[in-house]
């Protein structure tokens, strides 16, 4: 697995995928739907999937002494690592926004989503959609990347729409604050973490089963 991971990071991955991690800094943009940054990092990962497909990576990998299931697991771990790099930057920037910029006028008058634990939870939910709809969908054929990505994009923008709407509903304002109902916010984040881990585990299992059934 170590060799496969090395291959994914230093051989298969496009540099663009790493560059797109920097979209985490969108967390600091005021009056902007900052959750879109999570979509962009997934788009960067999508580019690696496309490039790998064009380079015949799957065939190259499974002809070497590795099992097909390990090849799938390695790609998932790569995806998870990129997502976690993005998430860690988001966490740091969210902490900065919640501590150093609490009185900043541009954030105080922000009608859109603020960076707080709920935002971090939503970031993870975008990743759940990516792993479930795109990555898992891709491994059903190990070829078709377009349709799963379009479906993921639609689902993500629906989620972003819901996320940007909910905190305007009376009684749910706590979702967009940085100093109220923090326990609820952390609960939301914890729930998203559990969903992310569970969905990832199920996706890997399903994809490993899919690749054993298809003809390469």
């Amino acid at each position, binding site marked *: 697995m170590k*060799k496969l991971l*090395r*291959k994914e990071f*230093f*051989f298969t991955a496009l540099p663009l995928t790493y560059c797109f991690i920097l979209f985490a800094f969108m967390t600091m943009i005021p009056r902007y739907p900052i959750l879109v940054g999570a979509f962009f990092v997934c788009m960067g990962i999508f580019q690696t999937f496309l490039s790998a497909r064009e*380079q*015949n*990576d799957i*065939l*190259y990998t*499974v*002809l*070497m*002494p*590795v*099992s*097909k299931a390990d090849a799938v697991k390695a790609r998932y771990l790569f995806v998870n690592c990129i997502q976690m790099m993005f998430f860690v930057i988001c966490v740091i920037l969210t902490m900065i926004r919640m501590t150093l910029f609490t009185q900043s006028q541009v954030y105080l008058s922000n009608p859109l989503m603020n960076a707080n634990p709920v935002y971090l939870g939503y970031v993870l939910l975008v990743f759940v959609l990516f792993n479930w709809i795109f990555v898992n969908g891709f491994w059903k054929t190990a070829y078709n990347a377009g349709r799963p990505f379009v479906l993921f994009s639609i689902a993500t923008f629906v989620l972003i729409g819901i996320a940007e709407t909910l905190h305007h509903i009376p009684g749910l304002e706590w979702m967009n604050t940085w100093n109220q109902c923090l326990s609820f916010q952390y609960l939301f984040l914890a729930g998203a973490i559990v969903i992310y881990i569970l969905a990832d585990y199920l996706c890997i299992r399903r994809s490993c089963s899919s690749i*054993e*059934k*298809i*003809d*390469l």
Partner: protein
Amino acid sequence: MTAILEVRNLCKKYPSFQLNHVSFSVEQGSIMGLIGRNGAGKTTTMKSMLDLVHPDEGDVLFFGESMKEKDNSVRQKIGYASGANQFYLRKKIREITNMTKTFYDNWDDAEYQKYIKMFGLNENKKLMELSEGMKVKFSLTTALSHHAQLLILDEPTSGLDPVSREELLEIFQYLAKQGTAILFSTHITSDLEKCADAITYIQNGTVISSKPYTEFLKDYPEQNSLEDIMVHLERKPMQFDQE
């Protein structure tokens, strides 16, 4: 002699084609030619053997073990090269090799350099910058550099010039003497006349003959060469519209 590869009753059904109970075996130190027309099922057979295509029925045993059960250990001992499958065309040969070799326990850098020099490959070139023949040579170099005990070669000589083909056939004979088993599919039947110990003939997904080369020739005493046998078996009268 020990059977390095045993293919038993391999079946695979597609909407317009099917592999029909394909069976043959390749012995240690022998060269087997897998021949047949385009679309006869040679590549599907090889892909099924390598578990890239899922056969509906049948078993494939490498060194007495099933690929499904001992995937990694079996693949360590197999070399595969194809004129058709090309990977990472935009990467340099050196980069591809540096990655590939980490996966093989028996990778031999000296052996690799020997073939790089023999085939005149420039490691700083990208794969896309090589001619088709040179790509096949690189593919073979990789397959030969980890001391594979069985080489599965899908049309390895296609695209090669006559001198390179001659060199390659000599290498095959040398490797066979060292104990390596070689299964290779080809349309260029003259290549097999120079080096094959056995022939498996596949027609419309069915093996019609699999036996030692000399015995195969004896079955067709009126034909002078493998090419004549293939034409004799496959040729159908052409029909042209007549005004």
